[in-house]
Structure formats: structure tokens, C-alpha cells
């Protein structure tokens, strides 16, 4: 029998959905246990940071990192995991693009603290207490890590070998990627794995005609005909600017795509490609009317950059 692979997985600024997506491969998880030893997965096995640090560089065959980077500890683990792993995979949209938690990058830490600890309506905080890096209590000093002002992508912090998209990744794609890893037939480094190179529209079950849009609608005021492209019917849908591979599961329950599978291979900025795809199908030549229709897209930042805000920042 071939030597068992060594695998590690870490979660950072995330929700745990990526870990559930690994569980959702169901009985296949038992096959994974046969071919691989999980040397570090803080939520599943007892390996600690210290054990991770004690490994030799490159001793881990594949390291999975899910979640974005929002504090110094998460950055520290990213660096160690990079050093110890032959292959480092950004697992899920938060690690790849920043994900939903990176919407916090529209604001800053001070404004966040002001709201959460002072302005939120259920607060009872007459002394204006805020969490502190160090707190003196009668018995000693207690410490807390310091949050970063902005959420970062994993590849802003360390070099990443592969990106696995999705919020969370579809369990069938996860199973396929595991098969590829076991086979050793890996694509070139820097590749996106577990997703298609074509837009979600290619796997969408809805009928597409010539898209001409006169009005944008919101789902609560929308009468679906049950078969035509949702964008064509006036719902903002990121399908044309988003990779396929997700199984079109939101569309299956009549809800438009919000872009969790990230930008297409040739696109640098998913939001800009979505906006240009949508602008090109507005049914008007009158600049004033076009503006009126565009204004019906009430939250462009929240629709077009929901999963990828840090990716839009200029790389230095």
C-alpha cells in the first residue's frame, strides 16, 4: 500500500460551512481516513499549533486553509501552514476572495466597536467598556488578540498553490478534488480547482433568449414565470460573471446568483465584469433612461462585491 498522505486543515475568519462541506462528502470521508492521516485540524483532531510548528518544512502533503485573515493569529497559522505544506489550498471563497466577512472592509474597526459595544440597542454599557488586548483582573492579567482593521485574502499573506471556490464548495466538487489529489495529477500551480472555467449561465437550467432589460426588480415584488432566465426577467443575477460548478443550486429554488464561485478565468474584477454584462443588456439608448434603470440596482456594492471585496484592492 502506498504511503499515507498527510493532510492539515485550518479555519480562520469563517463560519464553519467549509468544514461542513467536507463532512457532506458523507461515507467518502471514511475513504479519506484510509488514504490520509489528518495531522492538524484543530476542530477534529488534537494536534495543536505547537505540534504544527514541530513538523518539518514540507512534511504536510496538502494544507487546506478556510476563512479569510482578520487577526494576527490567523496570519501566523497561515505562515506556518505554508511552510509545512507541499501544497497549500485556499479552501472556499473567504480564503480565495475574502468572502462575506470582508464586507466589513467598507468600514473600520473603530466604527465597528462604536456600533457593537455602544450604539446597538440591547447594550447596557453605562461605563463604556470595550474589549481590551490586556485586562487586569484581581487574580492576574487576561489577554485578547487584536483584530485587524481590514479582512485580507489568504494570498495577501502567503503564497497559495490552488484555489477551491464556493460558499461553501459543493460537496461533489470537494470529492472530485480529493480524487485529483490522490491521483497526483495536479494542474499547474495557481489554478482554480473544483470549478468550471465557464460562466454559471452555461449550466443554468433556465431558458435564455435575447436579454433586454427595462426594469430591475426585487425578489419580494417579482412574479417568476418559472422558466426564463432570472436576469432577463429583471432580477440582478451574477451568473454571467461567475464560474460554474456550484450545481446552480440557488437557481434551482428560483433565486438569482450572488457570485460565490468567484470571477471567470479572464476576469480581474468580478464586480466590474458583472456590471458591464448587466449594463450591456439594458434596453434603451437614451442616457437618461439608462441611468434610471441602473438606479434600480439599489446596492451595487453589496450585489457585485459580496464575496470579493479584498480582491478589488490594488495589489502592492
Amino acid at each position, binding site marked *: 500500500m502506498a504511503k499515507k498522505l498527510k493532510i492539515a486543515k485550518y*479555519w*480562520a475568519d469563517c463560519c464553519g460551512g467549509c468544514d461542513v462541506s467536507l463532512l457532506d462528502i458523507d461515507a467518502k470521508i471514511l475513504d479519506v481516513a484510509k488514504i490520509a492521516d489528518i495531522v492538524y485540524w484543530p*476542530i*477534529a483532531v488534537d494536534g495543536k499549533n505547537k505540534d504544527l510548528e514541530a513538523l518539518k518544512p514540507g512534511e504536510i502533503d496538502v494544507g487546506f486553509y478556510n476563512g479569510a485573515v482578520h487577526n494576527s*493569529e490567523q496570519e501566523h497559522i497561515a505562515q506556518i501552514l505554508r511552510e509545512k505544506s507541499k501544497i497549500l489550498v485556499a479552501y472556499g471563497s473567504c480564503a480565495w476572495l475574502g468572502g462575506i466577512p470582508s464586507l466589513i472592509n467598507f*468600514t473600520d474597526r473603530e466604527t465597528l466597536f462604536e456600533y457593537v459595544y455602544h450604539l*446597538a440597542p440591547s447594550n*447596557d454599557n453605562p461605563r463604556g467598556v470595550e474589549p481590551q488586548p490586556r485586562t487586569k483582573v484581581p487574580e492576574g492579567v487576561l489577554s485578547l*488578540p487584536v483584530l485587524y482593521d481590514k479582512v485580507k485574502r489568504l494570498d495577501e499573506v502567503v503564497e497559495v498553490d490552488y484555489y477551491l471556490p464556493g460558499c461553501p464548495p459543493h460537496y461533489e466538487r470537494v470529492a472530485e478534488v480529493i480524487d485529483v489529489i490522490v491521483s497526483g495529477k495536479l494542474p499547474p500551480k495557481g489554478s482554480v480547482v473544483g470549478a468550471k472555467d465557464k460562466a454559471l449561465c452555461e449550466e443554468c437550467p433556465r431558458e435564455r433568449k435575447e436579454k433586454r432589460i427595462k426594469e430591475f426588480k426585487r425578489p419580494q415584488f417579482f412574479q417568476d414565470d418559472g422558466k426564463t432566465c432570472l436576469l432577463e426577467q429583471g432580477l440582478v443575477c451574477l451568473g454571467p460573471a461567475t464560474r460554474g460548478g456550484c450545481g446552480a443550486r440557488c437557481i434551482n429554488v428560483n433565486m438569482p446568483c450572488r457570485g460565490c464561485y468567484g470571477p471567470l478565468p479572464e476576469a480581474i474584477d468580478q464586480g466590474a465584469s458583472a456590471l458591464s454584462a448587466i449594463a450591456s443588456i439594458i434596453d434603451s439608448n437614451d442616457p437618461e433612461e439608462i441611468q434610471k434603470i441602473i438606479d434600480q440596482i*439599489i446596492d451595487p456594492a453589496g450585489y457585485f462585491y459580496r464575496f470579493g471585496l479584498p480582491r478589488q484592492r490594488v495589489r502592492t
Partner: protein
Amino acid sequence: MGKRYTIDPITRLEGHGKIEIFTDDEGNVINAYFQVPQLRGFEKFCQGRPVEELPRIVPRICGVCPEAHHLASAKAVDAVYKVDPPSPAKKLRELMYMAHYVHSHIAHFYALAAADFVVGPQAPVAERNILGVVAKVGLETGGEVIKQRSNAQKVQEIIGGKATHPVCAIPGGMSKALTEDERQQIEKMGVSAVEFGLFGLDLFRKVVLENSEYVDLIKSDMYSLNIHNMGLVDENNKVNFYDGKVRVVDTNGKELYKYSPEEYLDYVAEHTEPFSYLKYPFLKKIGWKGFVEGQESGIYWATPLSRLNAADGMATPKAQEAYEEFYQTLGGKPVKATLATHWARLIELLYAAERWVELARDPEITSKEVHKVPTETPKEGVGIVEAPRGTLTHHYITDENGIVQKVNLIVGTTNNNAPISLSIKKAAQGLIKKGTKVSEGILNMVEMAFRAYDPCLSCATHSIPGRIPLIINLRDKNGNILETIRSD
């Protein structure tokens, strides 16, 4: 010289949780602190978003209980638009939610908690995990656990689009009706889930209740807490997860309050401490009296145990039988034994499975009438569901165009922040005393005090097969490590 035990990290969703235990010169525990070191700020970055997008955004608070956030959010946006969804839409939401409860409670009981009882609280570490459980109960049962959790995920995917991060609920109802084919699949899986729910209670009886050592442990003072009880109830004061009023029953078992979601600010407030990012909710009319138990303290819990204590019974027959047995065995209401929370969780699992079948057989469930278009001007709304790990409150305020101006969230485990702190201190005081050799087994028994809550600081630890790893460092007053005790 006093000693300091640092339990760091207890791995949580966003990095790490921490426990600090301090002893006096004799080695008796004088205090313990539970710290949560992360904050993500959903309340802030939801501002400026169209309110109907919140049910699609807030599930990312927790990838293990996303349905809870999706539905609390959906109910809040219904309230913002003052729209009452058609009855089939509400039933469809509840059906998805029952499958969610089955998934979540299976994950916690079998993957995390069972090892402490099935294998033993002081069993060798290498065996005290899900694999050890499977070795004891058999591979067939292990396969059944995987199958039942998988079925529960499938039901959520059918109704919600995705099990993790559902998208189906919109202001006024649901985006898709259920087909007859789908209904049949769901019904079949539900019938099998009820059998599995009964199996779980049998397993608990055999493994735990027939072992006097475990029963003594459950009834011991160091694993009990004398605080108020919160839970959502229906119009007959029966446990309900999707809808109803929040009922608070005091330490003597008497009803203190029963409030509607929109009144929550009259009953609950949140205290802040500088050593944790997580706030401490308490009963506002009583007030924050510090980290103390008792009738005079404002501290309450919101757990499977508190929900049973806060209700008069279960709304389905088999779960009701289990409920009666629970109180007969443990000596009447309210039960204060933290470890009995595991038993309560299994009773809830059975209820969720029974309710799943009831809803799957409801003639309305395949109705096409699943959405009502809102007509009122949006303004403000509160939505409450009972999340697997505690009462979940979402409160939104919007402008007249439905753009979010303010969000306030009181999340499942947050309710239990103060109780978890108290439980850890009590267990540590009961276990670590002058002359105690602080072994790994002792350490695991401190761990058991918080594991009962299924702590979900951002909710994912409990879903993973394994256990929460711990290190205790024994330090001198200068912070130098004298001894390290590991749980692995």
C-alpha cells in the same frame, strides 16, 4: 503561591477560545474566566444592504446552523414589511428547519458528546472520540449516523437550495413550492429519522442511565446551575423551534415572563466585559448582578435543557413520553443538571423528526401558494426562532425603501456566555482542589461542563467528528510554565 491554569486554545470558529483558571496558595480554584477572542461585525456591514438580502447574508454567521439565521432573518424581514406569509410557506420553512435540527443535534450528540459517556469521561484519550464511539456501538450504527445526517442535509437542500447557506426565504414567504415527488422523498426520510430518534434515547438509557456512576455525575452539584430558563413556546406552552413566544421560567419553575419578538428589548439587555469580545445577555428587569447564580441574578440559559424547563411539554406524542420520563427520572422541574442537556437534546431530536413527518404529511405542504407580495412600507421588524444552541433574535430597522439602517442580533450561544463562564468555574472548583493531581482526565471533566452547551461561538466545533483539544499550562507567578497537561 497561587497557580494559574491557561486552557488555550479551545478552538472555535474564528480562531481560538480561552479559559483562565486561578487558584489560591492552597491550590483551590478562586476564579475562572472564559474568553472569546473574535468579532466579525455582521451587525455593522449589513447596514446599507437591501433588507431582503439579509436572509442570504446572515447565514454566514454560522455554517453549522445557517437555517436558524436564515429563518430568524426571514421572520424579521416579514415583520419589516408587515406581511404575513401564507400558511404553506410557513410550514415549508418549519419543515426545512426540523431537518436542520436533526442534522445539528446528530452532529453534536454523536460526534462530540457521546464519547464522554459511551467511552467514558476518563477513558484513554485515543479512544475518547467518535472512532471510539463507533468501536463501542458498532460500525453499523456509525453508518446509520452518517446516513441520517446526510438525509437531513438533503431535505434542506431540496427546500432551501443549499443545506449550508439556504436561499429560499424571501419577505412574504418562499421562492419555491414543494413538488409531490420531493414531498414523498422527504416523508420517507422523516419516518426513518423518527426510528433513529427513538434509537438515540434507547442508547442513552442503556449507556448512561443504567450506569449509576454517570447518574451520580449528572446529579452532582459541580455540574448543576441554578439560573432562569428561556425557550420558545407555542400557544399551548409546548416547545416550538420556529414560532411562538419566548417564555422565561425562573429557578423555581414559575413563569416570569412571556414575550413576543417585538418586545425583546424590554426583557433582555447585554453587558460587556473588557476581557471578551462576546457580550453577556441578562434579564433586563432583574439586572446584571455579576457572575452569580440564583433567583436574584439576571443570568438565564437558552439550551435544550432550558427549553424543556421553560415549556409545559412537547407537541408530538413520542417526544412527550420521553419528556415525562425525563422529569420523572431527574426529580421534577426545573432540572438544573447541566449534563442532562444531552438527554434533552435527544428528546428534541425525536420531536424534530416527528414534526418533520407531520409536516411532510400536511395536505397544504405542496400548495403553490407560498408567497404573498408585500404591500406595506417597510420600517422595523424582529424575528425570533429557537436555534439549536439557544434563542436567536434578529432585529432590523430600514428606511422607506427597505434599505437597512440598523441591525441588532442576539445569537444562540451568546445567551449562554455567562452560564458557560459559571459552569466552568463550578466544575473547576469541584475538580481542582488542594492536593489534586490535575490529570488529563480531570481536564476532560472540566471540558464536559462547557461541552454540554454545544458551545457555538460561531457555531462549528460541534459538527466535526472529534473533540475540542485542550492544553493546560501550569505557570508560576512570573508566567513561566511549570507543567503542561495535554488532552492528546
